[in-house]
Each structure stands twice: as C-alpha cells, then as structure tokens.
C-alpha cells in the first residue's frame, strides 16, 4: 500500500506547475505595477468597475433561474418516461452540446437580427420588427441556450433515482401536486439542483463570447473586461489579474454558500 502513494507524485508536481503556480502568478500580478513594485492600485481600481460586476452577476443569476425553471420540468418529464424514450431524449439534449458553442451562438445571431428569421416571421402576421439582438435579453438567452443541458443532466440523474412509490405514497396521504413538489421532489433533488446551478452560474458569470456575439459590444461583462486586459484592446495584465482575483473570490464565496446547503463534501459535486 505504501508504494502506491508515490504514483501520485508526478501529478502533484504537474498540478503545482500548471495549476497552482499560474494562480500564484495571478495573485502576484494583482499586486504588482508595471515596474514590478508592490502596489494596491490594481485592486483599488476595481471599484470603478463595480457596475460591470453587478451586471454580470445579475445576468448570470437571471440566466440560472430561467435555466432552472425550464430545466426542472424538462428533467422531471424525461425521468418519468419509458426507458428507451429517456435515452433518446437525453441524447437529443446532449447532441447540440457536441457542436461548438460558437457556431450555435452564431446561429442565434442569424435568428435574432432585425432582418432575421424571427422578425421576418413576425412581420408575416403583422408584428414587429422587434429589436432583439444586441440587448441584455439576447445575452441572457444565449446563456440559457448554451448552458441549459448543464442544468438538465444533473437534475435528471437525481430525479431518475427518486422512487415513484414515494410520490404515490405522498399523494395517497393527501398531498397535492404542489405539496409533493415542495416537500418531496425539491428537497430530494437538492444535490442535483446545486450542481446544476453551479454548472450554469459559473460559465455564465465569466463568459465573454456570448456577450460579445449577442450583446453588441454595449453589454460589457466581467469576462469581456478581463479578456480585453490580456488579448483585447487595452493591454494591462496587472489590472486583468486583479479583476480575475476578485472574480475568483466572489465565485468561491458563492460556491461555499451553495455547498453549505449540502451535507456531503465536495466530492459529490460532479459525479
């Protein structure tokens, strides 16, 4: 048994080199100025961008809520259907995920444009045109669209395990549909909800592609701001690192809150 431990050594070294050291570099850059001196300036500067933080978190929260509201019934319906139907539907949900998300988002651009398909169809019945692309709504839609499967799959895997007889028992004892949902289904599927919410919220809050493709440049999110500090218009890795650091801290705090809901340790999060 003793020799086994040594097998993890290369991985430990790899993790230090390519996970921990890079994060340490982010920390280091956050407190450094151009000349390499220690400074708090980058962190202090972030106050100016608080509105962008608020907006990012806001849109991500809305997107996560919508994903949950759409995803929960979907996952429930799938989990209660016949077995081969279940498999086919899961396949249908995963299929778009295999196609590059840039292409799918590009598809939405074509749909939502002023001269796009949706507006053309609406004009046939005498409505519109509506300004849909380049709005906050379009950004939220992009998030919901891209990350919905991340909500449905963990919810499904929990819901499918809930025994039908439990629900029937509750109904026999006089619980109506709403009560069954509140007292039985939701509490029992809590781990699935938590991992679904995390898997939607984290990429939503840090995206820079969706906001750029569907938000028309005027819906700047925290991800855009970080990206422009490194590869975009205003090169400033020091400020970029400080922004990343704050984003990471906010993220970990939210995650800690989420995890306190769950009794299990972190190891239950993905599998």
């Amino acid at each position, binding site marked *: 048994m003793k020799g*086994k*431990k*040594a097998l*993890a*050594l*290369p*991985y*430990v070294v*790899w993790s230090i080199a*390519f*996970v*921990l050291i*890079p*994060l340490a*570099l*982010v920390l280091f850059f956050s407190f450094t100025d151009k000349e390499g001196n220690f400074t708090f300036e980058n962190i202090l500067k972030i106050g100016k961008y608080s509105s962008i933080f608020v907006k990012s978190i806001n849109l991500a929260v809305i997107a996560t809520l919508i994903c949950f509201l*759409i995803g929960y*019934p979907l996952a429930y*319906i799938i989990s209660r259907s016949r077995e081969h139907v279940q498999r086919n539907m899961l*396949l*249908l949900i*995963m*299929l*778009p995920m*295999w*196609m*590059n*998300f*840039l*292409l799918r*988002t*590009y*598809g*939405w651009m*074509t*749909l939502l*444009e002023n001269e*796009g398909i949706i507006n053309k169809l609406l004009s046939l019945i005498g409505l519109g045109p509506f300004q849909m692309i380049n709005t906050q709504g379009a950004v939220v839609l992009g998030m919901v*669209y891209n990350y*919905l499967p991340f909500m449905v799959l963990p919810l499904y895997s929990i819901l499918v395990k809930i025994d039908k007889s439990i629900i029937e028992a509750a109904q026999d004892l006089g619980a109506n549909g709403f009560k069954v949902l509140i007292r039985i289904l939701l509490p029992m599927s809590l781990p699935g909800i938590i991992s679904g919410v995390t898997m939607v919220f*984290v*990429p939503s*809050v*840090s995206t*820079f*592609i969706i906001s750029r*493709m569907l938000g028309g440049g005027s819906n700047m999110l925290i*991800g855009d701001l*970080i990206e422009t500090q*490194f*590869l975009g218009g205003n090169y400033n*890795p020091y400020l970029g*690192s400080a922004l*990343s650091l704050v*984003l*990471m801290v906010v*993220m970990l705090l939210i995650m800690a809150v989420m995890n306190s809901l769950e009794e299990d340790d*972190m190891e239950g*999060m993905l*599998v």
Partner: protein
Amino acid sequence: MKTIGKRLYLGLCFLFLYAPIAILIIFSFIESKNRATFTGFTFKWYQALFHNDLIMRSLWNTLLVAVTASILATLFGTIAAVGISGMRKRMRSAMMNVTYLPVINPEIITGISTMLLFVYLKEVLHLELGFFTVLIAHITFCLPYVILNVLPKLRQMDPSLYEAALDLGCGPFKAFIKVVVPEILPGIASGFLMSFTFSLDDFIITYFTSGSSFSTLPVTIYSMTRMKINPQINALSTLMFLFVLVLLLLMNIRKKGHQSTARRRA
C-alpha cells in the same frame, strides 16, 4: 390532457435547442452571401470549405491536440488516481481540492493564468506558445475529469483482490494490469471520453494559450465570426452536426446491440 401539455412542453424545449442549428443548416445551402435573402440552392460553400487551408489545418490541429491530450491525460490521470487513493485522509483531501480547482474555476481564469505562466516560460526558456503549450493546458484541464471518474471505481473495488493477486505471485505491475485495470475500466473509459470531448470543444483556454501560429478549429471559428460575411461557417456547422449525429447514432446502435446480446446470454 396532461400528456398533451407534456408533449407541447417537450416540443417547445427541443425547438428552442434546435432552431439555431436548423437555421445554420438551411443557410449553408443558400447562394446569396447576404443573410437577409433566400436565393438559389448551392453547394459552393462546401467546396470553398474544403479548399480553405486555414480551416483544414485547424481541424487537423484540433484532432491532434484532442487525441494526444486525452490519451496522455487518461494514462497520467489513472496513475494519479491510484496514487491519490493510497494517500492518507488529510493529504487526500488537499489533493482533491487542487483537483477540483480547474473544474470549478471559471475557464477564463484558467486561461489567463496559464497564459501568464507560458509567457513567463517563454522569456526564460524561449518556449514559444503553440502546440506544446496548448497540449499542456489541455492535459491540465482534462486530468481532473479522469481522476474524478476513476477514483470512485477504485473506492468501490475490493482492495483484497489486488492483494490476492500479489499473494498468488503476480508482480505489482502485472497485478495492477490484470486485476485493477479491468475493475476500473468503465471509469477510465468515461474519463477518456470526457477529456476527448472537452478538449475537442475547448475555445477559451486554447484562445489564451495558442500564441501566433497555432490555432484549433474553435479559435478559427471565433475569428471567422468576427470578420465579414462568411457562409463557409454555415457549411462547417452542418458538417459538424451531421458528424456528431452519425457518431451518436452509431454509439446508440452499438449499445442496443450489446444489450440485446446481453439479454440473449442471460
């Protein structure tokens, strides 16, 4: 009544999921460059696509990175998982926390942090950003998925099996291959599959670590979406969708075949 509601709901959900893909497919056969008009049926975007060096090269790069990274990450991750399972509790939970970092960290942070490291390495060692940096970054974000898939299987395994093999005269390596690997194979397989898919599809981390002359398909697609009109994108999407569809159908049929043979055996 209830079932109609259910059907309607499912229908709407799938409409939502597939509408943009359907649009791309339709537009890939339309001649006019202009997205606002439907005129003429054509295959010319497909022809142009196959003659587009940049796309073909990026496709090759993507496959190369995905195959290498997922194989290396699977090997490396399986060994690491065995090592981690042999650790004492405190050490193990520390290691698990590090393993979870790339999974829960927003991708953009993984991207920029590795970019900072590679730029630093470049100054010190003249290691240019390109294939190797992308490979390292991909292996790094694939490793956790392999480990997280293999570890539970190791935990489920009866440790006495391995010890029995040793007692019966197997060397540790042989015992590992003959006894442990078959037990954890499902975990290894799903870890490999996840790695392969994530690597194939990754844009953000590759975007930050690929440097000047190396680009994978997602990075190329990104630069195409930012340029002027290019209906080749639609053709590319259609082909990718068909490819994935066929792949999944094949896998599904194979699975069904397995099940029926299994049933027959039983």
